[in-house]
């Protein structure tokens, strides 16, 4: 059993008087020798497979976790793309025939389409105005020549 209060360290160790505080615990005879033999037998008989198995199981778990992450990431990207393609008709591609009827129920598309319609109408109006202006400015002589 270890001795105690033998070395005077700078750190405080309690002194509970002069009483004998040696270890009251005992061990069976030859215990340590027998116990170490038993431990040696245990470790020597540890199946290598167990370690290998643990290693393999650990690896499989790790691989499965990484695969699951990849699948989840792939699925997220796929879904994101799908959502984006639904919402991203390019302006040039829009034609009344290209848009499925049900898509008109989408408020966003309705709005886009309405704005395109208004732009087109505005352009048509400008053209009309220009034609009228030309007609107004043309003189009779030129008109006769042209005819």
């Amino acid at each position, binding site marked *: *059993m*270890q001795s105690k209060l033998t070395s005077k360290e700078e750190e405080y160790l309690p002194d509970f008087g002069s009483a004998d505080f040696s270890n*009251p615990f005992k061990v069976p005879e030859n215990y340590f020798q027998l116990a170490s033999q038993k431990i040696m037998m245990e470790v020597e008989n540890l199946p290598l497979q167990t370690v290998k198995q643990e290693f393999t199981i650990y690896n499989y778990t790790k691989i499965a976790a990484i695969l699951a992450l990849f699948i989840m990431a792939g699925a997220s990207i796929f879904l994101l793309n799908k959502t984006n393609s639904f919402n991203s008709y390019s302006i040039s591609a829009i034609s009344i025939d290209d848009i499925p009827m049900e898509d008109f129920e989408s408020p966003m598309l309705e709005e886009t389409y309405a704005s395109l319609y208004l732009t087109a109408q505005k352009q048509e109006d400008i053209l009309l105005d220009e034609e009228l202006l030309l007609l107004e400015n043309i003189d009779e002589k030129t008109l006769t020549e042209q005819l």
Partner: protein
Amino acid sequence: MHQEDSILLANFKNPKTKNQAFESLLKKYQQRIYWHVRRMVVDHDDTNDLVQDIFIKVWKNLDNFREDAKLYTWLYRIASNECITFLNRKKLKATVSFDDVSHELADKMVDSEYLDGNKIQMALQKAILTLPDKQRLVFNMKYFEEMKYEEISQIVGTSVGALKASYHFAVKKIENLLKED
């Protein structure tokens, strides 16, 4: 004559000398680890099982020991964790309070055939058993094994200041209990 830890570790890494190195390690540290665990769990049979588990863990993990710390602080760390886990499991299993477990340990101490204490020794051991597990761990390492706070700090993962305070309170509590007796 015990081998140096560095030689032990080098031999353990060599498959040809692995078993021999482990046997040397056992001879060198088995008794210290046994008493460290025994003071925590009191019962000899429980200690025997725990020490066996500890050294099997050491066998399995010694290859990964990075030599950042001393080998014996690493061994004490494993042993201390095993003791705390064992005591926590005991409390959970029995669904009893901490006081009941410490009483149970004290009863085991009195009934044990492997106990040879006089009245004052028994009083001290009983007083130590009233401390919380971690404080008891610190007290045992400081008082019985005369470890330095820096070493205990590496084992239990607590700052030196906190350990000093914990030890001081433990000593005061034990002194008061002994005076009452």
